[in-house]
């Protein structure tokens, strides 16, 4: 049976979180009024640092945590009160959670046995799935006898075997070593496509999120920061957190002052005086004061440096140069603030050199220092 035939059996359903909140006994809100609509068949990645609420949200969807307030729907059904088994979901755990006392075959068969499928049907399905995830030779072994990567595939197989409406994945790759992780990442993406089933995937690794997701939902401290396609959140971050979380090395932030002078805008700092493109003027919120503090955001890969002074550039001093072989990361200091530029090999600045930074304004962002919201 081919993977595409699997897709034909898909019973995929959309998922929605409506004002979902989770409060643990007397503590801070783990999840704060989450509003999120996951489209049917899409791979949505919940991304964020540890403690941001992504895993809690996933577990509420699974039915492993109670919902303090709000509504969770699978399809049109409200599932708040349903136990996990009635929600038609399947989950891959970070530790795989394979049944240690059962063989691989029995692990795969478990969900089907519970549903009282006929033995022959179970056997057939197990063989199918084993072939799809490539663990056919392992069926008789116990979990402790197989490798981490193999266990991960068994966990995946156990999730697939039921054709649920929704797949839940809680950092399934984080226990794999780096090389295997990258390889499995690609396979997972392909899988999800072929299975054509709504998948909610939790991770703290932004590279993983960017490569796997149809859309990314970034969370911090229980609050949803932004939802969008990887391109959207990368190039048009809603706030400083999202901007700083995505991308490696992270976006550069420089605190500067925005000044109006004769109808033109300038970015000003102790050693900076940058004119801004005129069409930005319209996009800024009302400037009753002639000056305001802003944060300039530019990604390291969007920065160009030159040894010769540039008028529309920012003066900077080289702090450290990290040579990675195929590229160089130049750590710079601008008026005491740090910045990183990503350069191709070849240009080799020395410690203490003075350089001038330039960038394309179209790739630059301005943030309000207090609210951290995106301005332009």
């Amino acid at each position: 049976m081919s993977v595409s035939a699997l897709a034909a059996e898909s019973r995929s359903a959309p998922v929605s979180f409506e004002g979902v909140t989770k409060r643990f006994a007397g503590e801070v809100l783990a999840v704060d009024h989450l509003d999120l609509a996951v489209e049917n068949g899409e791979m949505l990645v919940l991304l964020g640092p540890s403690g941001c609420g992504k895993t809690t949200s996933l577990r509420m969807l699974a039915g492993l945590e109670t919902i303090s307030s709000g509504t969770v729907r699978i399809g049109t059904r409200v599932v708040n009160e349903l136990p996990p088994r009635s929600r038609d979901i399947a989950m891959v755990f970070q530790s795989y959670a394979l049944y240690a006392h059962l063989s691989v075959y029995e692990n795969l068969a478990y969900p089907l046995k519970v549903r009282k499928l006929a033995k022959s049907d179970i056997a057939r399905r197990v063989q199918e799935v084993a072939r799809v995830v490539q663990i056919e030779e392992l069926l008789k072994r116990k979990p402790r006898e197989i490798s981490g990567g193999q266990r991960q595939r068994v966990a995946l197989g156990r999730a697939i075997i039921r054709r649920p409406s929704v797949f839940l994945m809680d950092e399934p790759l984080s226990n794999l070593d780096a090389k295997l992780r990258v390889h499995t990442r690609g396979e997972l993406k392909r899988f999800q496509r072929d299975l054509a089933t709504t998948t909610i995937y939790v991770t703290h690794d932004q590279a993983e999120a960017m490569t796997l997701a149809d859309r990314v939902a970034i969370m911090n401290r229980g609050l949803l920061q932004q939802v969008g396609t990887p391109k959207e959140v990368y190039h048009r971050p809603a706030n400083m957190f999202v901007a700083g979380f995505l991308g490696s090395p992270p976006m550069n932030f420089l605190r500067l002052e925005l000044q109006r002078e004769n109808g033109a805008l300038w970015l000003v700092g102790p050693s900076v005086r940058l004119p801004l493109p005129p069409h930005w003027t319209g996009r800024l919120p009302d400037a009753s004061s002639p000056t305001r503090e802003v944060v300039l955001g530019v990604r390291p890969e969007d920065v160009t440096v030159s040894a010769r002074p540039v008028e529309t550039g920012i003066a900077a001093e080289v702090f450290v140069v990290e040579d990675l072989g195929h590229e160089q990361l130049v750590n710079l200091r601008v008026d005491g603030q740090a910045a990183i530029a990503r350069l191709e090999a070849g240009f080799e600045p020395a410690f203490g050199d003075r350089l001038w930074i330039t960038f394309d304004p179209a790739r630059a962002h301005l943030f309000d220092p207090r609210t951290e919201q995106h301005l332009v």
Partner: protein
Amino acid sequence: MVGETSVGRILKHAAAVAAVLLVLLPVYWMVNMSFKGRSEFTARPPTLVVEEPTTANYRDLLVEQRFDRYGRNSLVVALIAASLAVTIGTLAAYGLSRFRLPKNINYHLLFTMLTVRMFPPIVTIVPLFVYYRELGLLDTRLGLGLVHAFTELPLVIWMMIGFFRDIPRDMEEAALVDGDNRLQVLRKIAIPLAAPGLAATFILVFISSWNEFLLALVLTESNAQTLPIAVAGQITQYQVKYGNIMAAGVLTTLPVLVLALLAQRHLTRGLAVGGVTG
């Protein structure tokens, strides 16, 4: 070990051997005496190794006095106690380790049970005796088994909580997602994985019940009399049958030793809470 003199080493080994000998000698002596006929038993000086071994004591006990009757009683009582305690205790242990009851009841329940465990049975034997008399449970194996089960309940709960803690939570969560209800998870995942611990706990309760004296003394008379009471009974009679008593002592000890061997590994954990039996 660096800096250890050979004299030091010899001394230490000697001390260890001495300790083990001290421990084993009375046991050896007990076995030794059990095979002595009456005359050799009371011989002066006592023979260090029995010279005329005889199984007369054992034969007398088992055939004439039908000591096996007491053995059966002890067995039934211990089985009742162990089965009941392990069943009830395991259920409670699972509940206390996987669920958080409101208002910190988990903690209070455990605290109360452990504290009660620390009281000697002596404080409640009088009312128990009266109640049992009224209920017709006096001198019954079921009655004694029930009390023993209660006595060992805290031990079971304590141990099983420890064993359940060792089972990763997400294995049970996976089963919940796969389709089990919470009882099925207990039956199909938790208990199979905690099985060795269950067995060890069962054995420990069995041993405790088998060895128990005071409650058996008060709550049984002739029908349900257990081995320890029967053995003690031999000594307070007018005619003390020396060899018989020792044989009885050995017989009472044997099953327990065998079982202890089986549960060896988990013994420490259980003893820490259970204390010395009796």
